[in-house]
């Protein structure tokens, strides 16, 4: 089985998010970038599905050379090879177009992504790739089993879940539950240096959105403390002051 895993390079989860003084750009100074945590789950499941010579895992990333250390991390975790489309990921449709253009004639049986990136949280790219490749897409799955040529997936819905059967090839976006993240071992780290990372030139694609500016949330006022033996007072405040109950 040939699996393609899409990955993005995102600020570490502990990052305090700040922007340039004109509010137009994320301030990346001093920020540690990591493999998007949801993409790590997709990668881990892809490795499990191909272990023992049952297939190969290719990771694909749309970004500049500054992402290479994160791509090497994915190779250290266990991907067989990597592809970087040499362009900033301008917007979701542009990014999906790059992945689809690369994947369309490569015969992948399965494409996996994380449910969303933890920077833009768009959750747009997976289903867009599905549309561009003309294959089924299932977003936000918690379980993935391949039975012959059918994927058996558990998809999250409000207040429950759906069990979905999908014929290969398809694309799915992965959430917690699909797999546990894998930590690279020393052998993986050593072999990652020599695994193939090909750099592919960008395909022309329309840009449909642009980010005007960023804002950070307005800080809350000072916390109002209530004595531990006076919970009735809290209930009163929630009713009369906060008006939420």
């Amino acid at each position: 089985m040939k699996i393609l895993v899409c990955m993005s390079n995102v600020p570490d989860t502990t990052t305090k998010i700040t922007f340039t003084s004109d509010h137009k750009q994320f301030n990346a100074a001093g920020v540690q970038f990591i493999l998007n945590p949801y993409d790590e789950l997709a990668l881990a499941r892809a490795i499990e599905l191909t272990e023992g010579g049952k297939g190969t895992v290719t990771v694909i990333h749309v970004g500049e050379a500054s992402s290479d250390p994160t791509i090497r991390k994915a190779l250290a975790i266990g991907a067989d090879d990597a592809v970087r489309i040499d362009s900033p990921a301008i917007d979701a449709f542009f990014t999906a177009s790059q992945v689809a253009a690369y994947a369309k004639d490569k015969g992948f049986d399965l494409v996996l992504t994380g449910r969303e990136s933890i920077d833009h949280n768009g959750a747009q790219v997976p289903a867009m790739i599905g549309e561009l490749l003309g294959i089924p897409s299932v977003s936000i799955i918690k379980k993935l089993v391949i039975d012959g040529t059918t994927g058996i997936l558990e998809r999250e819905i409000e207040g429950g879940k759906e069990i979905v059967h999908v014929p290969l090839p398809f694309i799915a976006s992965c959430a917690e539950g699909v797999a546990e993240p894998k930590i690279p071992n020393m052998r993986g780290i050593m072999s990652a240096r020599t695994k193939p990372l090909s750099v592919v030139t960008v395909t022309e694609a329309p840009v449909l959105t642009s980010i005007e500016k960023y804002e950070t949330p307005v800080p809350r006022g000072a916390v109002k403390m209530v004595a531990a033996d006076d919970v009735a007072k809290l209930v009163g405040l929630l009713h009369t002051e906060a008006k939420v109950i």
Partner: protein
Amino acid sequence: MSVLVYVEHAEGKFRKSAFEVVSYAKAIADQLSTGLTAVVIGNGDKAELEKLGTYGASTVLFTGNTQLSSFVNQAYASLLAEAAAKADAAIVVMTNSFSGKGLAPRLAARLGAGLVAGAVALPETGDRKFTVKRSAFSGKAFSFVTLLSDKKVITLNPNAYPATENAVTPAIEEFSPAVKESDLGTLVKEIIRASGKVSLPEAELVVSAGRGLKGPENWGMIEDLANALGAATACSKPVSDAGWRPHEEHVGQTGIAVSPNLYIAIGISGAIQHLAGVSSSKTIVVINKDPEAPFFKVADYGIVGDAFEIVPKLTEAIKAYKGI
């Protein structure tokens, strides 16, 4: 040119988020001085469909086609693309739900439309630009996205826009274009819903607990408090990682982002990754025995003390207030 809103339902009933998204789409239609058409798939109950008129939908298209009675995003995207063409809609709006996240990008790619996912406010339409505020960086920031395409798709976060009555008597029309076999690859085998549980992403009230509870056996008092309030239950990442609670309750940067009216955090210290997922809550209450817990800095109300003593008392106080 008009605005089209796709409205989800669960087993034939609209949830609050459905009325929110219709109200939001109606406000956009008003901004652009045009009409609003709603589309409902797999529900032909007239009395229920008429409710969408209460929030401003002047036309309601529905299909009772049983091939579409469960969610198949390729077929749904095809149907919405046809409905958009029929209604001459340049803007399609839907809820940023689990299904919406699978459907909206597919539809946007089909239409060649730019997509704003997770809108939290109405578009700003001055200066011949169409810009929408949305949540980004897992709730740590907002981005303002300009849609450059003629066709536009917007998904609205739950609890971000109030359901607003704007009553019209809607024209209800059946709309059932033929479904292509190639769109039906995905087959929903089973739908499992936990009965009586409040859905976390849409909940107005959330009771959440962390490692301070010491073990999964202590969640009874959390559920009691949630039941007394009519709230959803949630938890921090260490709790779901340890298997004390299911993953779908994990709130935070790598879990679910919520924006309820009230978020009660019990025994959660308030790591930056957790705060990211809850910062857009209207009111935050923190109960923690450690007065230095970082969560107090972003809370509206706080109680320092032992959760095992405070939570049962709070449940009793809520019951007394509600008269139950």
